[in-house]
């Protein structure tokens, strides 16, 4: 078993990531050109949205057709292109500085996902919701993972961010019944969107300060209770604000949150949070988690550290809320109830604490499961909890708790043993 795995790794290692991504780009292009024709010839009703899994669940007779589709559309082009470009990208990649390396890969990843997703509006919507979940999970990880406290306020922060950014955008760029005609020309909406999101995030952070000041004077479970109260307070407050629709919700958000925008914000959030956790401040946060008194003795200003982590979490949750509002185009206070917080917590603990790759993995798994298992209808909510329970039994710290997923075989590592020659069997 070990030998086979090593062989697979070596085979995989033979090709740099950039080539795999180029392969993905090729597959997306092929699908764009002939996907529909191939799907029809195979007897499918159209291009399968998410690798045909929901088609298989809906009708197992489609398994062969879906397999053929996956092989022809994805596996073959990816493998062929990756293998063909391996030598060339390897040379290119090894000459890059780390910064260019990361940048090039992020851009390639974006192109692959966007090219693939844009073919189908369902893919695009799910990808955007997925990206929002990634921001939420990663930012919550700062508090629940690195800081070791237990906060459930994420839905409340989302709500504040969603409402503030929506109000700014609707007041500024939309002719609305409540806020009157647009103040600025609607064509500028996309340009102003980042500022609106920033304002939303900031508003969330300011309300978080009100939670942070009293709750970080105490220790233990108080934060959980206070943040729970916070979620209810925000919900009730919004419900009683007539000018933003109260329980009837708030709509007319301009359509400015396309996939590229959401992707950029997600990349930004991951970058900021990664840098945060690897900075001195981040190390201090982990020190507070491990032993607050010891950290204090080592000159860590524990209160400041806690407040900064909590506010960062609030800011990014607020930004995610703003993105959510503009992706869905309608918000309602009851969308940001305790259930939403529980959902993000489930993603977080599934993926694992104190781990950025874990948060991403948890968000992707949870969100994709709940989309792909749609054909199961009611049984879906039996399958997902069972998955969560199984994970908690076999990996009590989550899939990637307290460690990052390393991609040794994905790094540009021109060693003698492996080399970047095309893999041979």
């Amino acid at each position, binding site marked *: 078993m070990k030998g086979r795995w090593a062989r697979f790794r070596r085979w995989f290692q033979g090709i740099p990531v950039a080539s795999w991504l180029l392969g993905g780009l090729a597959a997306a292009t092929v699908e764009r050109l002939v996907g529909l024709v191939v799907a029809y010839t195979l007897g499918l*009703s159209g291009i399968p949205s998410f690798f045909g899994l929901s088609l298989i669940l809906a009708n197992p007779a489609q398994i062969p057709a879906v397999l053929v589709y996956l092989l022809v559309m994805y596996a073959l082009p990816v493998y062929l292109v990756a293998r063909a470009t391996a030598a060339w990208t390897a040379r290119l990649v090894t000459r890059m500085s780390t910064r260019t390396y990361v940048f090039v890969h992020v851009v390639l990843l974006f192109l692959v996902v966007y090219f693939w997703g844009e073919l189908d509006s369902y893919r695009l919507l799910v990808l955007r919701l997925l990206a929002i979940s990634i921001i939420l999970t990663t930012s919550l990880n700062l508090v629940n993972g690195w800081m070791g406290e237990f906060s459930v306020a994420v839905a409340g922060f989302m709500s504040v961010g969603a409402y503030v950014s929506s109000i700014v955008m609707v007041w500024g760029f939309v002719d609305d019944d409540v806020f009157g005609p647009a103040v600025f020309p609607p064509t500028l909406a996309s340009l102003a969107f980042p500022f609106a999101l920033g304002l939303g995030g900031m508003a969330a952070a300011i309300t978080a300060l009100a939670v942070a000041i009293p709750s970080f004077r105490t220790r233990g479970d108080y934060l959980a209770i206070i943040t729970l109260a916070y979620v209810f307070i925000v919900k009730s407050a919004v419900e009683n604000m007539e000018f933003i629709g109260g329980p009837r919700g708030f709509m007319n958000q301009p359509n400015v949150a396309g996939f590229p925008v959401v992707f950029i914000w997600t990349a930004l959030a991951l970058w900021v949070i990664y840098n945060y956790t690897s900075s001195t401040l981040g190390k201090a946060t982990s020190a507070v988690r491990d032993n607050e008194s010891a950290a204090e003795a080592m000159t860590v200003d524990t209160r400041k550290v806690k407040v900064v982590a909590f506010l960062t979490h609030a800011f990014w949750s607020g930004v995610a809320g703003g993105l959510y509002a503009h992706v869905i185009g*309608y918000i309602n206070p009851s969308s940001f109830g305790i259930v939403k917080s529980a959902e993000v917590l489930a993603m977080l603990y599934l993926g694992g604490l104190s781990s950025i790759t874990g948060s991403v993995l948890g968000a992707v798994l949870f969100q994709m499961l709940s989309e792909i298992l749609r054909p199961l209808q009611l049984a879906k909510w039996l399958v997902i909890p069972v998955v969560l329970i199984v994970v908690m039994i076999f990996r009590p710290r989550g899939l990637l708790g307290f460690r990052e997923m390393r991609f040794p075989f994905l790094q540009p590592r021109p060693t003698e043993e492996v080399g970047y020659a095309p893999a041979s069997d």
Partner: protein
Amino acid sequence: MKRLWWILGMVLLASLLLVGCQPGPRAAYGGVIKIGHVAPLTGDIPKVGEEGKFALEMWLEDLEKAGGLEVGGVTYRIEVIHEDNESKAESSAAAATKLIAEDKVLAIIGPYASKQAIPTGEVADRNKTPMISPWSTNPRTTKGRPFVFRAAFLDDFQGFVLAKFMQEEFGAQKIAILYDVASDYPKGLAEFVKQSAEELGMEVVAFESFTTKDRDFSAQLTKIINSDAEILFTPQYYDEVPLIVKQAHELGWTKPIVGSDSWGSPELMNLCGDDCVGSFFSTHWAVAGAKGAAKEFIDRFQSKYGYAPGDVAALAWDSAHLLQKAIQDCGKLTGNLEEDRQCIRDALANISEYEGITGKMRFNAEGDPVKCAIIVRINENYDFEFYKQVCP
């Protein structure tokens, strides 16, 4: 590695052979018309989703018995794809997008509650796919969206009817209202009733609120009892109404209690019992005293699923038949999704009159139905008995 290639090759060959045996799509949509159904099968109100699903299953049964739906000389089989929206806005939008993009449905029935119907209507309208929400009563669901229709009448109309009924039936001058401030529908209706009542010269002496999942209403009810209100109006759902009514009676309220269409669930009387007897509510639909097609529908539903259908089932049934009529009015399906969806939308908008089990209806320019409301009385047999019809 070589072995792996062999296996892959074999799989490819085998699947190609298998695929060759499957019939490919030839006629328009391969002779199958797909309709999406977005419903809350899980979440806060699973009963609503279930009733809708059952009604559509009965519709399919009828079609199957008839051998399919004939459109322009070609017989099609109808397939309904049920999607659970978990009672959540984003899940509802995703489900509708999936139905439109992946399953390529011709039209969508659902969602039911307004907080899901509003964002889902946006998805449907943007993708130019006709959608009929059977149960949503928020004006924004259809407003400015040519592809979105509904089968239920609107809250402003219902509010007016209720206020008028309270005045004419009881000669009431002073009314009390108790409603959930945190839920869209009760709040909206409470405000519309208040507005209409004041316009009709009545006085709202108590306008009391609570929030969702509150279970104790004694503070609000004491206030209401101490005011000199002659009628209590409460536009709540079947899980809250029994609590409100029972607590009101325990605190000494003996005057009439009036509700709205949200009362109309078969569950209500299981929870409420004798306390609710003698109350009135406005609705789309009355089980007791029904005649003709409605009676037939009720009997069939009752014998098949073991309980009498509520307004959700009746409205879902009517939505399905409106859609069926629109597809037939279309004359011919081209096989081009965009054209056919447009054609169905136009046909829906042009339906001149449809005799449904919830009354005669047609759509106005906004996609809202023009129809009558029914007032029912809860009788001693725990039935919702037809009492009066009120038309705009």
